């Protein structure tokens, strides 16, 4: 199909893919358990959550904004869904998804109004909502936890579906979401508007792009995906407390940035975001497999993020220098 050839990973995505394979290979050689079916399944299933959120915030970051509230949204949706399931025994899996999606949309809409409507700095706004939403989880949960017994079996069953012995259903769902969003961002005008807005905000206004509407919807989408990621969390861990997924927003931001969605806006794809998420999770997993203490996890996330933005900076500088050299040549 024509559009698949356009979505074919190239440049950044391809080189990340190579790094990914290398990391897996080297770790696998040192610690063979890392590449077993169990190990891979586990890796892919834990990547699903981060990857889903990465797909969600990619459009926001492409528009030169950011959404830090997502991991609080995951916590809120996971706890709320578990709570509803505990009180309504006949809840089915699809109802869980609907509820989670709605919760996510609500948080996203709040962010959208503040960032797009009032034009407040996205970072500060979403830091604020990060706290408010997490605080909400603390307050309503009142330290109540839920585990597998309280959750619908139809929901938990999703976690047991594995294709070809390697690919968990959740990961397949992520891949489907990735392809749909990648298609949308590439082949629909609202998707292209995101790139235009992130690339040159004043010019986007000038050519008549509806900046408010696009920004608002991007936040709603980001919230929606985080909400769904909450259900994925339940599927994977089969238990939830008020600190669920606390502080993981950085891992998601790092994944997206490493995947080639630049913080400066205007470029990147959801395919890259998913590869970035895979890479971050693989590196984390690889280090664990190599015997590095889990306590270093956050330090590694931070380091990866810094390296990713540093790499972007080097690339940008390269193109600036090329332009200058060209100018010097022409002036001669």
């Amino acid at each position, binding site marked *: 199909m024509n559009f698949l050839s356009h979505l074919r990973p190239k440049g950044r995505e391809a080189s990340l893919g190579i790094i990914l394979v290398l990391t897996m290979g080297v770790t696998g050689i040192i610690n063979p358990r890392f590449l077993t079916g169990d190990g891979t399944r586990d890796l892919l299933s834990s990547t699903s959550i981060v990857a889903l959120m990465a797909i969600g915030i990619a459009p926001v970051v492409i528009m030169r904004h950011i959404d830090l509230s997502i991991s609080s949204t995951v916590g809120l949706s996971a706890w709320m869904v578990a709570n509803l399931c505990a009180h309504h025994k006949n809840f089915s899996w699809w109802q869980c998804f609907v509820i989670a999606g709605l919760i996510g949309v609500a948080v996203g809409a709040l962010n959208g109004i503040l960032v797009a409507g009032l034009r407040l700095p996205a970072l*500060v706004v979403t830091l*604020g909502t990060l706290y408010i939403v997490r605080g*909400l989880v603390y307050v309503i949960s009142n330290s109540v936890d839920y585990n597998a017994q309280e959750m619908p079996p139809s929901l938990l069953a999703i976690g047991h579906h594995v294709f070809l012995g390697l690919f968990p259903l959740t990961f397949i769902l992520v891949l489907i979401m990735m392809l749909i969003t990648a298609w949308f961002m590439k082949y629909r005008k609202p998707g292209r508007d995101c790139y235009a807005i992130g690339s040159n905000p004043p010019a986007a206004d000038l050519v008549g792009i509806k900046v408010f509407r696009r920004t608002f919807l991007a936040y709603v989408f980001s919230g929606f995906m985080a909400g769904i990621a909450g259900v994925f969390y339940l599927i994977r861990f089969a238990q939830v407390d008020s600190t669920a997924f606390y502080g993981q927003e950085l891992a998601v931001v790092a994944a997206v940035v490493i995947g080639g969605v630049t913080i400066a806006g205007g470029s990147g794809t959801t395919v890259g975001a998913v590869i970035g998420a895979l890479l971050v999770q693989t590196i984390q997993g690889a280090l664990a497999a190599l015997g590095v203490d889990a306590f*270093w996890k956050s*330090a590694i996330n931070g380091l990866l993020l*810094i390296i990713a*933005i540093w790499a972007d900076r080097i690339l940008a500088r390269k193109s600036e220098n090329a332009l200058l050299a060209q100018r010097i040549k022409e002036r001669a």
Partner: protein
Amino acid sequence: MSVTTPDSTTAKKPKFRFTWDTSILLLLLVVWVAATLTTDNFLSTTNVSQIFSNTSEITIMAFGMIFLIIVGEIDLSIASILALGSAMLGWSYERGTPIWLSIIICIVVGTLCGFINGILVTKVGLGSLAVTIGTLALYRGIANGLLGTKTVNEFPDYWTSFGFDTIGKSWIPQSLPLIIILGIGFGLLLHNTPFGRRSLAIGQSPEAAKFAGVNVIRHKIIVFTFTGFMSGIAGVIYTFRFSTAQADNGVGLELLVISACLLGGVSIFGGIGTMWGVIAGVLLAGSVESWLTLREINAQWRTIVTGILLLTSVAAPVLINKAKARRKVTKSL
């Protein structure tokens, strides 16, 4: 056209203006009155002492942060710097380092972390928002790696009493004089020295500052470095106040510091800010928290209050400006 009123006002003192940082003082007063009326002992000496003591780290870090926000940058890693300093303090003390040396290590580590942030932002040219999110995770991660879930809490009494005791029989926390001295010092630095003026200038227009002979890069590195230094000091106080060195010390404090600054009228876009406003902002945050505690409102609500304070502090100036602009338009019609 031009403002050509012949003027006689050069010598006249600037008249009182109803600005954001004066209104925050009023708000603070309102909170105090309300808290006093609705609780039994809000203004009791113990409670006032508590408010000052509870806000000591925030205040100290805010003294650095105000300069950073004013020059148009931000540092989200300060609470992680506090934790890393604190972890180093505990870690080295546990291994037999004399306490005074451990304290110095804590402050030096803080300073170094700030310096690294400064270099990454200015020399390497990375955005301070993104990069300090990275160092936020990095510094706290190192603290985590260093201490794991372990805590160090056997410190000499002399030092822990500095954290939470008062001077003699008075209500004044032992750390308060230090904070007052730092406050006056940084206030003078901001408002009465070329350094402060240059900081404001950089925030207002980095380009014009360059043309006015300000070494913008060096200036920003200095500001990042002393924000790190202040976080190191805050790390010492935090460690002794809770008598604990552990990796998750001060999680989320960066938000309180930033909201205190913004509540105090420092513009998130740089170039505007006063020390008075920030001190009022810190006291406001501290008083609200204390009020909630005294009303026995669930501690978990505080996270929400933090978030709301932060949102209010960025949204309020924007909304006020919008309202002002609208009033101006209707007037001119």
